[in-house]
């Protein structure tokens, strides 16, 4: 049941979205953060063959079955996480980038991220003044079990504070910011280590950007009931 073929006709010059019928798994090996269990990864491969022309394109990606939930705790003001239904005590490190000249090799990522795992960390927070990290960074976080808290590119000091006071309305081109955000989400969304998107560092982005991010990143209605602000009020799974 983990191998499926579907047939589809696509009009000339058309771009379409297609959802496979869901694949059923009974008790798959779950992906766990560092210290809670194994980082089980399956390989998902998708190919498209065109009649009369053979294989046209292929794609594959490691995939980890895991469910990550978090909420702000009223008592402490801190964010509490659960992975696969189990509470997890977060031991995190802050991260800007691996190299100031952006020589971001796989070897370097592997060493840096394994080091975090060896330090018994289970989360890395990618600070909003740095990078949206690269797929190779996430590959090693998937392998070593580091959850990733990924911030978008807003910091208080460049967007509202500082001397002279910086522009509180964030970047000049809000639509460009959202275009980059949407593309970044598509680049990284299949990594099991990706735990949380955050609007920026120590503050929320400008209102229109913040609302658009919250709307775009809301849970799909098949997965949650939402209130009028797009906030999850009941988890249906």
């Amino acid at each position: 049941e983990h191998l499926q073929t579907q047939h589809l006709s696509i009009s000339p010059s058309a771009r379409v979205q297609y959802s496979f019928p869901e694949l059923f798994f009974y008790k798959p090996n779950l992906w766990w953060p560092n210290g809670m269990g194994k980082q089980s990864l399956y390989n998902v491969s998708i190919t498209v063959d065109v009649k009369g022309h053979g294989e046209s394109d292929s794609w594959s990606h490691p995939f980890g079955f895991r469910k990550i939930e978090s909420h702000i705790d009223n008592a402490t003001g801190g964010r509490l996480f659960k992975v696969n239904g189990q509470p997890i005590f977060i031991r995190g490190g802050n991260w800007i980038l691996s190299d100031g000249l952006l020589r971001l090799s796989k070897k370097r990522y592997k060493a840096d991220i394994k080091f975090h795992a060896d330090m018994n960390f289970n989360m890395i927070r990618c600070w909003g003044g740095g990078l949206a990290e690269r797929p190779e960074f996430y590959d090693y976080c998937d392998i070593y079990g580091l959850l990733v808290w990924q911030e978008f590119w807003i910091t208080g000091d460049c967007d509202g504070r500082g001397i002279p006071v910086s522009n509180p309305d964030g970047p000049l081109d809000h639509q460009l910011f959202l275009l980059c955000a949407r593309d970044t989400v598509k680049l990284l969304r299949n990594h099991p280590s990706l735990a949380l998107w955050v609007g920026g560092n120590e503050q929320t982005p400008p209102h229109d950007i913040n609302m658009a991010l919250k709307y775009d990143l809301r849970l799909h209605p098949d997965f949650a009931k939402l209130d009028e602000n797009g906030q999850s009020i009941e988890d249906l799974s």
Partner: protein
Amino acid sequence: MAEIGKTKLDSGWVAARSTDIQLTGTQLTTTHPPAGPTSPWMEAVVPGTVLATLVKNKLVPDPFYGLENESILDIADAGREYYTFWFFRTFHCKLSGNQHVDLNFRAINYYAEVYLNGHKMVLPEGMFRRHSLDVTDVLHPDKQNLLAVLVHPPNHPGTIPPEGGQGGDHEIGKDIAAQYVEGWDWMAPIRDRNTGIWDEVSISVTGPVKIIDPHLVASFFDNYKRVYLHSTIELENRSSWVADCALNIQVSTELEEGICLV
């Protein structure tokens, strides 16, 4: 016939400061390509930044040793042109009749003009976005393809106050780019503001139909006993006829080295 899939273009690049080159992009990719890493051209770090290329060629010291960063000219003093650089390389790709090829930039900082065999394309602004160009029609099947990329720094590189400070004068916050590059309490300013082709460059060959941005999501029921994998993809038919497609999805796990369970 080219093999379906991706080929990284991560070596063989040369670079030169734009003000040292009097040729146009069209000339560089037709009649006057650089002969190699001879002045003003130099071996380039791609992916990487302009500053990484200058460090590699020992034209500036490594900014992360001692106070060497102080001896590197800051973009605020040098001007944006000083860190505007050409990058050049060649590649070979021979397609069959119904194949297509994309030239992919997974990220650049901050915008660029791309020339391939004399044809100009533009990579718009934004440090955190992918660019994918269908270059099928401008490819040379039987000879080297000449690729030149003119990379421009962020629009608002800002200036660094004498006392330093968080994000310098904050100008960089006006762009969609990393903000640490104007310096922070933990970091000296990055002189080129990380200008460059800073992430993977590749060409990808497909048939008439291309897979775009698959999305995988799992849902869990009955205490993680019942699990469903939901998969959504986009497909683009680049041909002028209806494409009858067979879509396959397969999930496997390696039980031990060389043995997979499907």
